[in-house]
């Protein structure tokens, strides 16, 4: 015993009797949102197995809706966020809201995926794709609400493995295969970094529970491990920054986003990013007192680099999917700036993520509606398209203005909150540079619109399909409407986030 | 601790190792003779008849011949792996005996993970088979080893689930404990108390009815693990000449054969330990004839019963080999993945239910 590390929770304390806690049926109720998603994933699989592929999309939407509804009570009566299932995972309040937000990206992409599969004669993939979407939503939920770092890793893997497969779901399409393989190899590599970091944190603190790590005296760790703590957190950060496609770890993003089936990219780019941002911010906040402020500075610099790099490279792209991929790197930068700005910025990042979800899913859905062959994705070929097809032009302009961050669209509100929190958190220079880079962003977003509206149409290279198919027109219009509404009256959502955030207990203390 | 590390370097462990090796060698010699005689009987032939009385010394003559023969290494073979393969195959099987008792005594490693350990270490011989097949650089041996791999992967899973079913019932992986529990519990098929009778009533297959099914799965998968007929696709003589060990001659060949027979012994020992009461006597008490108590316990009786039961199972294996035609490769795999695997999984779940609620 005398040899034992003082900051380790003594092994003998963990007597078996203490570990065996009464299994509480409350645990099941608390995790019901995630479990119901899992259940519906299995149902969709079975439906596919018994040749009922046609209704899988309806069942998926139903499943996600039910799962969201199950999380609603904890959110509507704003309860405090609390731990459940032997302190493995958070539930109630903010955690419920996070679950609902994460489900949104799956829910919104289902109609577009259905349509895209029909268009490409790939309807036989429905069962697999929808069950994978449900499973990866489960993974996102686990990742974003985990209290145990092992839970984080498991959630991340469930999410990522599903996404690797989704990226390569069009087997005959070489680009889809390329996307899947690249994503898989690099993603597995990044996961290894994350795991190494987690094992180091465990070695130092003797626990993987984040709530216990926060209670350990920072000075004790600094005395004991003056050096080791930084590589540990850096390794964890690398794992997450990869999933977020932040600047030095972004290389997979353009290829994967270009190669993967278009509406699925919308899902991949939103849900996984939101879950990773939430988990990353949460872990960072838990480890921050241990590492001082240096960490948030590093994150802020990476955010800055992502913004600059993403926006400048995106400005040179011809392929609209590639353009959106690079712009997503810059959006990651904005979100990371929020994460670096402390708890206030973390809230802003969540809000930004929500808006980004609406915009990105709608953008990829809109692109998929006119996509027939490779050349259709080159926006230089879209000259005059806005005039020819008013609906397409109108919705595209809303999305582009919003992505560029023009008022009165939602994108502006998101950026406003992020920069505000960055300024409050002391990152004034970063915020200024961020605003400047978003001007570069405005350049290329508007260039798409200029091509669409003010250039003479060239008939021979234009996309053949100009009409947006009926079954996706309404969902896209709804999304565009949401973007406009949030842009005009953001107060209800943001103030609600405030209330829940205040109830999140220790999170707010940080 | 799995091993007492200090004991590794003492004579205390070297003696049992040597004894076990000698025992396995003699058993294999007799086993080959028995197999030939049984085959002859089933096929209405005479079998070996020249060397010694009724041919009893035939296998000794064979092994002498094998020992003298040159071990030919093919020119294009991978020399290192070619030599290593038979050693690895035999070593992995032989290591399994470390935890398998022949008698109720101190001379084996009594550990808590014994069943898992046997599963683990015996599964390593697949690697040896791959090495043998690949290193020989012969298309038949490569086919043979590829078939062996797909077969062994397929059958290892039901085998593992079968062991799991037993482990669930007895709550332990310790061989000694499993055998001891088969001498004290007393509700045959959960119906009537037969504690006073003892004997075969206490065997786990009679205590827990579904273990009979688990035994059938275990035994079937076990035969497949040994690459014996009707699952001897890897060394199917009519198709692949001799499978993965075509190129092996002399003592290297003898080693591989020895490993095969040792593997049979492992499977039947495990069966006896898990399902047939281990070293406990099968004779029940009848009235004033306390046959169970008279013939139980002690070194002689325990080793006698354990080995008798095991050899009976080996006899059944031989019987099956010479009575059943060989499976086709795809039937073989389908049988494992589509029949044995779901069945064993169901039985494991049933074991849990039985242990929790159904058993009195």
């Amino acid at each position, binding site marked *: 015993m005398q*040899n*034992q*590390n003082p900051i*380790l929770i003594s092994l*003998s304390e963990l007597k*078996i009797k203490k*570990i*065996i*806690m009464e299994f509480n049926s409350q645990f099941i109720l608390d995790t019901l949102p995630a479990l119901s998603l*899992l259940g519906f994933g299995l149902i969709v699989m079975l439906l596919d197995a018994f040749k009922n592929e046609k209704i899988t999309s309806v069942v998926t939407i139903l499943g996600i809706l039910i799962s969201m509804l199950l999380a609603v009570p904890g959110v509507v009566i704003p309860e405090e966020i609390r731990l459940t*299932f*032997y302190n*493995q*995972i958070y539930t109630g309040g903010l955690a419920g809201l996070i679950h609902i937000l994460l489900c949104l990206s799956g829910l919104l992409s289902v109609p577009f995926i259905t349509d895209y599969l029909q268009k490409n004669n790939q309807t*036989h*993939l429905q069962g*697999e794709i929808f*069950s*994978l979407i449900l*499973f990866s939503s*489960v*993974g996102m939920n686990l990742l974003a609400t985990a209290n*145990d770092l092992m839970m984080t890793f*498991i959630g991340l*893997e469930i999410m990522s*493995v*599903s996404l*690797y*497969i989704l990226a*390569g779901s069009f*087997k005959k399409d070489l680009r889809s295969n390329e996307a899947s393989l690249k994503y898989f190899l690099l993603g597995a590599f990044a996961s290894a970094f994350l795991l190494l970091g987690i094992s180091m944190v465990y*070695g130092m603190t003797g626990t993987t529970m984040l709530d216990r790590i926060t209670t350990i005296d920072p000075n004790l760790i600094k005395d*004991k*491990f003056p*050096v*080791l703590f930084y*590589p540990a957190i850096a390794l964890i950060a690398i794992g997450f920054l990869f999933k977020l496609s932040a600047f030095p770890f972004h290389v997979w993003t353009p290829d994967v986003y270009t190669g993967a089936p278009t509406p699925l990219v919308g899902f991949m780019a939103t849900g996984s990013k939101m879950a990773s941002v939430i988990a990353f911010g949460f872990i960072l906040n838990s480890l921050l007192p241990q590492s001082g402020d240096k960490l948030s500075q590093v994150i802020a610099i990476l955010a800055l680099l992502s913004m600059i790099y993403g926006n400048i490279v995106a400005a040179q792209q011809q392929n609209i999917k590639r353009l959106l991929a690079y712009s997503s790197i810059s959006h990651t930068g904005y979100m990371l700036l929020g994460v670096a700005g402390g708890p206030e910025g973390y809230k802003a990042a969540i809000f930004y993520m929500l808006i980004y979800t609406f915009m990105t899913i709608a953008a990829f859905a809109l692109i998929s509606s006119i996509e027939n062959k490779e050349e259709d994705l080159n926006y230089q070929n879209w000259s005059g398209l806005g005039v020819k097809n008013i609906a397409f032009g109108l919705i595209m302009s809303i999305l582009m203005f919003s992505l560029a961050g023009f008022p009165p669209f939602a994108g502006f509100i998101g950026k406003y909150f992020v920069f505000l929190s960055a300024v409050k958190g002391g990152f004034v220079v970063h915020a200024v540079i961020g605003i400047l880079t978003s001007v570069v962003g405005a350049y290329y977003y508007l260039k798409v619109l200029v091509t669409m509206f003010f250039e003479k149409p060239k008939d021979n290279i234009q996309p053949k399909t100009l009409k947006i198919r009926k079954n996706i027109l309404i969902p896209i219009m709804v999304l565009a409407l949401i973007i406009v509404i949030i842009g005009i009256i953001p107060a209800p959502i943001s103030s609600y986030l405030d209330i829940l955030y205040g109830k999140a207990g220790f999170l707010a203390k940080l | *601790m*799995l*091993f007492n*590390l200090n004991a*590794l370097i003492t004579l205390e462990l070297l003696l049992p190792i040597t004894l076990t090796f000698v025992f396995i060698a003699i058993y294999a010699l007799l086993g080959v003779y028995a197999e030939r005689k049984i085959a002859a009987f089933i096929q209405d032939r005479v079998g070996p008849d020249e060397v010694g009385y009724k041919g009893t010394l035939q296998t000794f003559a064979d092994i002498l011949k094998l020992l003298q023969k040159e071990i030919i290494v093919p020119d294009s073979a*991978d020399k290192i*792996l070619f030599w290593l393969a038979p050693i690895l195959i035999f070593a992995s099987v032989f290591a399994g005996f470390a935890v398998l008792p022949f008698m109720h005594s101190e001379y084996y490693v009594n550990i808590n*993970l014994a069943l*898992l350990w046997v599963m*683990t*270490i015996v*599964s390593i011989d*697949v*690697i040896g088979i*791959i090495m043998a*097949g*690949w290193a020989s650089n012969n298309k038949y041996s*490569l086919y043979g*080893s*590829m078939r062996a*791999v797909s077969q062994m*992967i397929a059958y*290892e899973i039901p085998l593992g689930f079968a062991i799991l079913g037993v482990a669930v019932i007895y709550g332990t992986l310790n061989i000694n404990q499993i055998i001891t529990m088969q001498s004290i519990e007393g509700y045959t098929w959960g119906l009537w108390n037969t504690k006073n009778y003892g004997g075969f009533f206490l065997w786990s297959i009679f205590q827990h009815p579904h273990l009979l099914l688990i035994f059938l799965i275990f035994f079937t998968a076990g035969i497949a693990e040994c690459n014996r007929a009707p699952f001897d696709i890897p060394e199917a003589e009519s198709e692949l000449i001799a499978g993965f060990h075509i190129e092996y001659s002399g003592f290297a060949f003898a080693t591989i054969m020895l490993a095969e027979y040792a593997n049979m012994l492992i499977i039947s020992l495990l069966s006896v330990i898990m399902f047939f009461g281990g070293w406990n006597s099968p004779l029940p008490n009848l009235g004033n004839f306390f046959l169970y108590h008279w013939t139980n316990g002690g070194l002689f009786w325990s080793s006698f019963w354990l080995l008798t039961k095991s050899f009976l199972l080996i006899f059944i294996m031989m019987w099956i080999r010479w009575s059943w035609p060989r499976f086709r490769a795809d039937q073989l795999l389908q049988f494992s993945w589509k029949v044995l695997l779901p069945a064993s999984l169901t039985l494991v779940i049933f074991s849990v239910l039985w242990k929790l609620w159904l058993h009195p």
Partner: protein
Amino acid sequence: MVETVLFWVLAVLSIATALAVITNRNPMYSVLLLVVNFFCIGGLYLTLNAEFIAVIQIIVYAGAIMVLFLFVVMLLNLGSEKSLEPAFDAKKGLAFLLGLAFLAEMLVAMKDFSAIGSAKETFEYGKVEKIGLQLMTQYVYPFEMISVILLVALIGALMIAKKYN
């Protein structure tokens, strides 16, 4: 004493085989050396009294995964790997230096890393019973959720292998 010797033998052997895995040009040898490496790591677990993990290490990695690797290598019939690019370029040199820097950092960090209790304290935590109890109480949620990863991987394998008409 025996444990110290065993530790050093296994540690050196595992590092040596790991290096051999990546430097060997014959894929078959690489896989087999990896098997040896897994055995050494299993042995290291044994010296830490983690007998269950040691056995699982061997049964899962050496017994199952590596057999599949060997199977794949045999099916693909790979020859010895030939190097396509020059043995050394600036990128590799930079990567090597960075790796070296990371190694140095880890060594500095680990310099005064005090051991997590002696082997005796961890004695009963390597037992199957204890691990099972932990998995079924404290870690039951992550434990059950790992099955989703397997399920998802299964769906992926099916999607790749399945022939759709």
